[in-house]
């Protein structure tokens, strides 16, 4: 098999006396959707935090594109082309969708005005409108505070923000949790489209049919450790649930 884009091995993470990760491993390849599943408390969110720079593992190695890396901050991960959609969204509700899309990456006007940090709001709004259209995100307006939008639209903006900026890998922590049927389909469409562009997508989800429908592979975490790996095409919901609850385990994972 080709060299993995991201290969994490034996990650350990303690929070005080709580062992969130006990030697967890994880692999993602370019151009595939990997679902990361596990019961509550299995360590999914902690694993994603460690792989996106939000937390640092106590031990273990992370290899990206064949080189061993450390991710001291989310900024470090982003500079490698890794973006994350967080479960709690992490958007600024008082700013409009365009401002949220460009948050931390604002465009400034060319010339002397730009030296003073004057924003090019018009250009950001134009490009944001384009990006939202490309990703099929429908918004009533690009200049109302995002807090005035529905939960689903807010989520769509959060997803769009990570996808627009990612170049190699996107983590999505429950990206469809708050969505209606139509918007869920849109987000999953986006996931597939991003994969087809050659990026790796890591999808964390509790929704087993969704996991099987959209992902190419599934990795299962249990009690802070990877316990099973499946090809989505060859497995069933029963098998996944069995792995999550510990009824079934693979030796080689």
């Amino acid at each position, binding site marked *: 098999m080709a060299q993995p884009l991201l290969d994490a091995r034996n990650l350990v993470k303690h929070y005080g006396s709580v062992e969130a990760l006990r030697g967890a491993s994880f692999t993602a390849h370019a151009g595939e959707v990997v679902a990361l599943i596990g019961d509550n408390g299995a360590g999914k969110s902690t694993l994603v935090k460690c792989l996106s720079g939000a937390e640092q593992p106590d031990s273990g190695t992370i290899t990206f594109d064949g080189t061993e890396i450390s991710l001291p901050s989310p900024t470090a991960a982003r500079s490698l082309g890794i973006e994350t959609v967080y479960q709690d969204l992490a958007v600024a509700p008082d700013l409009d969708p365009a401002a949220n899309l460009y948050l931390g990456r604002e465009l400034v006007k060319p010339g002397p005005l730009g030296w003073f940090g004057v*924003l090019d709001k018009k250009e950001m709004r134009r490009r944001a409108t384009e990006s939202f259209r490309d990703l099929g995100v429908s918004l009533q307006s690009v200049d109302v*505070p995002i807090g005035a939008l529905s939960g689903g639209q807010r989520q769509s903006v959060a997803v769009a923000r990570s996808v627009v900026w990612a170049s190699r890998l996107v983590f999505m922590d429950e990206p469809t949790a708050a969505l209606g049927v139509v918007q869920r389909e849109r987000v999953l469409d986006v996931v597939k489209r991003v994969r087809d562009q050659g990026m790796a997508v890591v999808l964390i989800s509790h929704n087993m049919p969704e996991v099987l429908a959209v992902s190419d592979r599934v990795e299962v975490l249990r009690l802070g450790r990877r316990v099973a790996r499946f090809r989505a095409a060859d497995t069933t919901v029963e098998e996944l649930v069995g792995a999550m609850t510990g009824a079934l385990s693979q030796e080689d994972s």
Partner: protein
Amino acid sequence: MNAATDVRQRSIRQRLFGANTLWIGLVLLVLIAVFGAIRPDAVLTTFTLQTTLVETSVLLVLSVGMTYVIITSGIDLSVGSVLVFSGVTSAMTMNALNDGNATTAGWGTVFVGLLVALVSGAAWGLLNGVLIAKTGIPPLIVTLGSFGAALGAGQLISNGSNVSGVPNVLSNSLGTGTWFGIPNLVLLAAVVTAIGALVLATTRFGRYTYAIGSNEEAARRVGIGVTGHLVKVYLLAGTLAGLAGFMALAYFRVASITGHDTDNLNAIAGVVLGGTSLFGGSGSVVGTVLGVFIPAVLRKGFVIVGVNVYWQPVAVAIVLVAAVWFDQSRRRARNQR
């Protein structure tokens, strides 16, 4: 075109009516109209306009800094005390440079005095900012501390009495001078306000200020240097308080220890009246200008019309509570979606 048709911008009219600023502006206009209708001869005169503007200039400068602080969902109770401290250090430095009395001193002394006032204010602002951003102590507590400490320090330095001996060149120019009929003090306040408004509304610095107040965690995750930015915002508020101290010095010809106990609350009231949310994330300097003038116009109007002036705080309190109530119900309606 499918979903794209859903992305559209609101019309100018929709935006205007959605803005708090418009309503605050209307309240201010109504107040002026009412007082003007009762006493047109006394209210709508250049003199009344000039005195109202001059008396509000110092508070306006404090409120510009306060607007930034409150938009980050912080608060700065120390601005009045920092104003006093900066006035005292500035006046005492100017006196010390001129054998104890700077009344006849020249521009060099004035310049040093300005620098001392700004640095004094900046020092307190930096202290506030570092404590708030690095230690996580709530802004209310940190600035309550510096509110007491800055005033105490000012009193210690001046032995608890006012400091006189302000250079005449300063009080005659910045203090009481005019430029084409506009008091210089007002001009300075207007320039500071205009820069403050532009930076907040159009620059990256302003955008980060909103973002941090709106969702600090989100700002941190997208790589905004939240700690550094908060330090800068409190540094700005402190520096402007220092400038306000220098302006008060020029206007009153004395560094006064008393009379600034409620400057902090007046600044906060002006900012909140102007539509800036105490929860952070939204607000504007333009709103603050309007918000600062509502209490000022009420006071002036009551004096002219002959209403007992003690009604002014009562009236301001009612408007203030109503404004915050309005903001809260607006947010609740929005967040229910």
